[in-house]
């Protein structure tokens, strides 16, 4: 709650109050005292009136889809109801304008509601960042009739949007794929590469000349080729070192960073997947989770989980990520290549670090 004193209104009020006091200092009776007492009761009554208005205000918000996508327009609806016995006059609606565009409900829209009246507001909504955060109506402001004091309250139930990040080329420009491809990594269970095997069969049209086993062909007097074995492809690991900022402190700057962080990670996963490079991604979704992305299905699973929110359920999980990051940086696991992506790099740290 934020209470603002409006100087102009206060000065006018004090001038009127002074006039009332002066008048009552010379004259008695109801003609002098009635205006004075009425003026004196304006501020306390206004405060109580405003609090009652707020206490009986009901705000419900919804969007047509369960998960929104950054930059896409969705239908938004807000139902605002006055459940009290006092009318609401010129209530100002404040929106999360730095996070989303509500096309038909501009910030500071004024709304009046009679007793037990409800009104619906429709608009298109466009969320500006990926992540999980409140959008739509942020707060409501009430002002007393004589513009002396204004009180702003956050609405009791904000609409929490789950906004999916976009998949872009952002990661491709940054990561050197050729080098990463040649470096060591884990093997995929599904993506296999061919290696010459020990089984022999007769040559058929289309077989590679390099697969011909000349020695056996000479003995058998016909072309014989080695049957290829399947070998797991080598993979990379990405560690998502997300920031552990408490929810209450997640401001627009945080959302911008989170947006870039998510977009980068999903783009990288998509890119590696497309290039046929399996990627193992370690990230926090309440607890530290590990997702192996080596197909469209596994990518979508990762994409949906990450969209639902990247967060730590406890400090323990955050410590796990931090310890893992230290281990990567010290290159203890020399059999893997790690890409550490730090959401909020400190002094001397990089957004992306490749540890191989």
């Amino acid at each position: 709650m934020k209470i603002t004193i409006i100087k102009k209104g206060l000065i006018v009020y004090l001038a009127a109050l002074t006039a009332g006091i002066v008048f009552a200092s010379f004259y008695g009776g109801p003609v002098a005292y009635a205006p004075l007492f009425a003026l004196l009761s304006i501020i306390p009554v206004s405060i109580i009136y405003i609090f009652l208005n707020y206490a009986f205000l009901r705000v419900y918000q919804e969007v047509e889809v369960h998960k929104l996508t950054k930059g896409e327009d969705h239908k938004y609806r807000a139902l605002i109801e006055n459940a009290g016995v006092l009318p609401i006059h010129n209530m100002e609606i404040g929106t999360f304008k730095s996070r989303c565009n509500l096309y038909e409900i501009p910030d500071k829209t004024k709304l009046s509601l009679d007793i037990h009246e409800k009104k619906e507001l429709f608009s298109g909504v466009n969320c500006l960042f990926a992540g999980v955060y409140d959008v739509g109506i942020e707060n409501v402001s009430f002002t007393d009739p004589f513009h002396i004091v204004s009180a702003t309250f956050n609405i009791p139930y904000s609409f929490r949007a789950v906004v999916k990040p976009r998949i872009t080329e952002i990661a491709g420009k940054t990561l050197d794929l050729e080098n990463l491809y040649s470096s060591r990594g884990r093997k995929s269970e599904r993506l296999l590469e061919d290696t010459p095997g020990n089984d022999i069969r007769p040559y058929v049209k289309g077989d590679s000349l390099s697969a011909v086993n000349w020695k056996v062909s000479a003995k058998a007097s016909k072309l014989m080729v080695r049957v290829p074995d399947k070998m797991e492809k080598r993979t990379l690991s990405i560690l998502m070192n997300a920031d552990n900022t408490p929810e209450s402190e997640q401001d627009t700057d945080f959302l911008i960073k989170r947006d870039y962080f998510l977009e980068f990670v999903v783009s990288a996963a998509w890119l590696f997947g497309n290039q046929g490079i399996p990627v193992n991604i370690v990230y926090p979704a309440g607890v530290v989770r590990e997702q192996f992305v080596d197909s469209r299905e596994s990518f979508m699973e990762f994409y949906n989980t990450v969209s639902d929110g990247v967060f730590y359920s406890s400090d323990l999980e955050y410590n796990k990520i931090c310890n893992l990051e230290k281990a990567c940086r010290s290159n203890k696991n020399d059999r893997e290549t790690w890409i550490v992506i730090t959401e909020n790099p400190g002094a001397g740290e990089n957004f992306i670090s490749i540890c191989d």
Partner: protein
Amino acid sequence: MFFMLFTALYYIFRLFISGIAAAVFSTVPALFLFFLLKDLSALPVLLPAMILGVVLRLAIHFISNREKKLLYAALILDIIALALFIGRSSFTGDNPAEKVMCICLVALTLSAVQTFFYESNSFPFPIYYFLIIAIITMMIPMKKEPIDWNKAVDLGQRFVYRIESIASDISYRFSFAFGDSYTAGYSSFTSTGKKIVEGERTQLIIETGEKPYYTYLDEETGKNKKLRKTLYLAGGRGADKVQFAKFIAFLHAYDIDRDRVFAFTEVSNIELEYAYIDTKDVIVPSSAFLITEGEKKVEEGISAKQHKKGYRISAKYLDIDYANPNLIAMIKDAPAEISWLTYDEACNYVDELWGLQFTQIMSRDEYESAASETPSGAGNEYLDVTGADSELKELSDKITSGARNDYDKCRLLEEYLRQYSYSKDAVGGYNPDSNMSTAEGMADIAKRFLFETKKGYCVHYTSSMVVMLRLSGIPARAASGFRYAFPFDIKDKYEVSSSCAHVWPEAYIENVGWIPFEPTAAYYALSNTSWHRSSNDADNKWTSEYHSGINPYDSSKASVKVDEDEDEEEEKVSVLLAVKVFLPTVVFTVAVIIMLVLGIYLIKVLRYRYGTPRQKLFYDVEQIKRILIKHSGGKLTDRGLLSDFKEAAPEDIREELGKVFDVFYRVVYGNGDSIEPTAEENELAFEMRKKLMR
């Protein structure tokens, strides 16, 4: 009033039915009222007023854009009301209807001003707001008189004086460093009688082990009562031993014994400390007979050097009840000639009366010198009437014409002067330099006070009484110092502020001595402050103590006659207070709390029972949420998602609870006609709530 009643009913009905129907229905109670009021002859105006109310209510409802038109009308009515109030002194508040009318007008005016100036005459703030203001204003009592700022001014002055006092203290401490003398406002005979403003600066601090009140048995009620002690502290006089010796001779002439003297005298001790006062005068109780500074006796009334803050003296004085009937009778019937006792006789007599060592008060030489040198009567300077004209003489003769003795003359003059109004906003004499230090100055102040202004304060009363006493042939003088009325609370220290500064007259009654009077109308006359003691009281504890060898005056713990009774009385009073005040308060508070709790519960039950299916569902869901939050021990927070609550619910009811929540979401967010909850769904929600409560 009737219009307001019907309007209030209209707004209530409008919650349930349409506007026109509500307007018509709101006037239905008028029918019942009509039959009730038609035979009421005591207030014939009620019936026409009610009819007017009905007509107005209906007419206003059907006037288009009526709010705006009413607001214009309110402004016009304001002008008319103000013109009538100022021009014809109407609306004085004698009639409650005037108050109601003024308040209604103010509420309408506020609404008009709000609409015109704050909403640009378009969309006014709801009238409910202004009605609330009107109702609150109506509950506040309104005086006929304008605001009395005196209390605020007094408070401000106290604050200023407190600051001033701190500043004085600091300047006082620093003054020694610069060798400067400290100056504060001790009143003196240089008072001219001009307008004064009282100060709150502490000038003296009194310490005493005695109770600050007398206790006596009220004959009318049969209860013990307290009477505050009043102490007259005179400056520049010191210990008046000669007066003490004369009083002994006076008592001896009547053969007063200890029992009788106790009825109207008491020996008291006090310690005095000078605060913010700079004077050479020794300020002590007016009938002090022994003053000591440490171990040293203080003989003079005016010291050679200025007394600084922290100067301490102790004084022993004879507190005399001048209103005691026995003493008054003795004064009135004072013998024509009194012979002084010998020193030894005086010692014995004083010892017998009060158990005092007279040798400590007066030496033999002092006593014998006083007995031989003190002439009969007072000095001629106390009969000086310079400046008094025939008009004053005529007045004093006229007042004292019926008196049979000097004391009666004094009382008549005192009573006469007490009729004059007390005011600090006064003027002095015709000559601006006139003051109380000379007979001429006092006469000038008295003339203007008695015949022209007829209002004043102690300076005017005292000057007048002194001059008129002298004109009546009675030696008189003015005493200057402080009049301090002790509080009822026993304290370690009593602060005498500069507002207690006072002057009072003293008349010399032959063979009795100087007797003080209090002609200042703002204070009780000495004749009205009797201690209500009789000589029989002396048979009580005081005498028993005395006979058992305890001298009540040896220490500062002088006994008051009904100490034990007083304690018992206090205990009784406190028990009575507990029974009469606290018990009902506690019972009432508990009853109010119980009623509030029951009332809230009842309202909830009724609202639920007679609520719509939607309201019932909302209430049930709200309660379910509360119960689950409570069960979770604060771990569960309301994020606005019912799925959280579903997960927190016990597994066996989770599915059914999910159905309830689905219904809730359907009702809140759904569109179409079939979104309202059915009776079965309501029943399910109710059952869920009950299960969770169990």
